[in-house]
């Protein structure tokens, strides 16, 4: 660790497929892909639609509403120095209202309060100068 203030957690590295998603987060917008040919939504982003193979993909601003599909409560931090202050924390597979799933953290409630299908809404948290993460809290 270079300094106590340094952000020690993994910082997403945008790539040509994902750059619009992370740029959207910086603007407080949750963007998912939309297929112009078969109308399905897609996450994580790709160069092609996983449903129909089309390359005609655009970006759609999701409502930010979702629900808990599955979740874990991390109690043992790995790596320990990085997550020692955070445990217990919740990682969830969030099912967005648009139908796609997105891994994230559930914040704003006790880990024990999380249940399946619990309604959630997105909230954005700036974690570094460059990066804003989409997190979820009880709706």
């Amino acid at each position, binding site marked *: 660790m270079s300094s106590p203030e340094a952000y020690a*957690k*993994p*910082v*997403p*590295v*945008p*790539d040509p497929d*994902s750059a619009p998603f992370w740029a959207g987060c910086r603007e407080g917008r949750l963007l998912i892909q939309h297929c112009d040919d078969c109308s399905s939504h897609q*996450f*994580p982003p790709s160069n092609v639609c*996983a449903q129909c193979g089309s390359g005609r993909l655009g970006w759609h601003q999701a409502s930010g509403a979702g629900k808990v*599909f*599955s*979740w*874990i*409560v*991390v*109690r*043992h931090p*790995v*790596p320990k120095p990085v*997550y020692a202050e*955070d445990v217990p*924390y919740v*990682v969830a*597979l969030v099912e967005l209202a648009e139908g796609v*799933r*997105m*891994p*994230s*953290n559930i914040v704003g409630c006790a*880990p024990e309060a999380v249940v*399946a299908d619990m309604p959630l809404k997105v909230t954005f948290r700036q*974690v570094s100068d460059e*990066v804003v*993460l989409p*997190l979820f809290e009880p709706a």
Partner: protein
Amino acid sequence: MATARRSAYALKDKYAIVGIGTTDYSANSGRTVRALAIEATANAIADAGLKPADVDGIVSYNFNDSAPAIAVATGLDIPNAGYAVDFLAGGNAANLIVLSAAAAIEAGLADVVVCYRAMNGRSGFRLGGGREFRALGPTQFTAPFGWITYPQAMAMWCRRYQVEYGLTPEQLGNVAVTLRENASLNPRAMQRKPMSMEDYLASRPIVDPFRMYDICLETDGACAVVVTSAERARDMQQKPVYIMGGAYGGGPQQGDDLFDCIRWPDHSKNYSHYIADDLWRSAGVTAGDVDVAEIYDCFTYSILMQLEGLGFCGLGEAGGFIADGHIRRDGKLPVNTHGGLLSEGYIHGFNHVIEAVEQLRGQSGPRQVPDAEIALTTAGAMTCGSAMILRR
């Protein structure tokens, strides 16, 4: 379920495992992975009554944590390997490499193929520590949220199963306790100390719904098998173990790497659900014909999904199936008679193949399943994996 292939693995009974070899399993080998790989492969070749010069194929799988096939061939002084392949893969490939060895022989690329997995899984590269601590490619959508390690990955599947079907801590604990009992009879096992349900329940919470004893060991070690044609096998020094059938695969949307399950349709089912038809059809047997099953157990929960996926019990019924004692050594489906990845050691699932061969040869000592004729081995726990049916 996926449409069954036009022709499942078509090499029924044409190839056999004729030699097995291992190193010690430890927490700190003090040796290079290359040295471990050479020892295990040399032991397997010797067990078959062969010399390295008789071997002309070599295949392994790794996560960039092993000695590559050409290095082991060089160390063994295999003069002319016509098939030398490293699969960049996890436990999902632990049976696939054996199937591919037979396929390579069928294709004329080699006649005698040694298959191995070697790792310093505790003292060197620890898979339990998670993937690379960088968030790029597939990990950019997981690691930034502290979703990094394999226990954290599989716990997400287990929780979804719990939501769909219900699952108690004791139902997972039954797996850990049963496998530890088996390990207590296995001199190779790293963990032989008896474990009670109380011990299990008192073990440290790691990532809900998993405790420490739901999670496999980390091991330094290697193991290897030798594959050749059934015709050659008949004249060799060990009783051949025939590859009756096998399958590799998974469902749709297997993801961008072995961790990624974001698009997987139903997390209460894993790869085994999708390969079951091909597996049983390839061997011409059914679940009821299996005498002993060595099932990939990176976690206690992994066994539940595979018991259901391969049809040993119905969906949602594995917890009860196990609670009824069916997977014990004296049950109708003895599972992981060596103690598995949970208690024998974690050679990435390849140690399951060793145990199956020993059981079918009748060489398992006090943990021997009487008259074991047909064994199942499986490999993998998430969106893709492989399995074999072996017979004596």
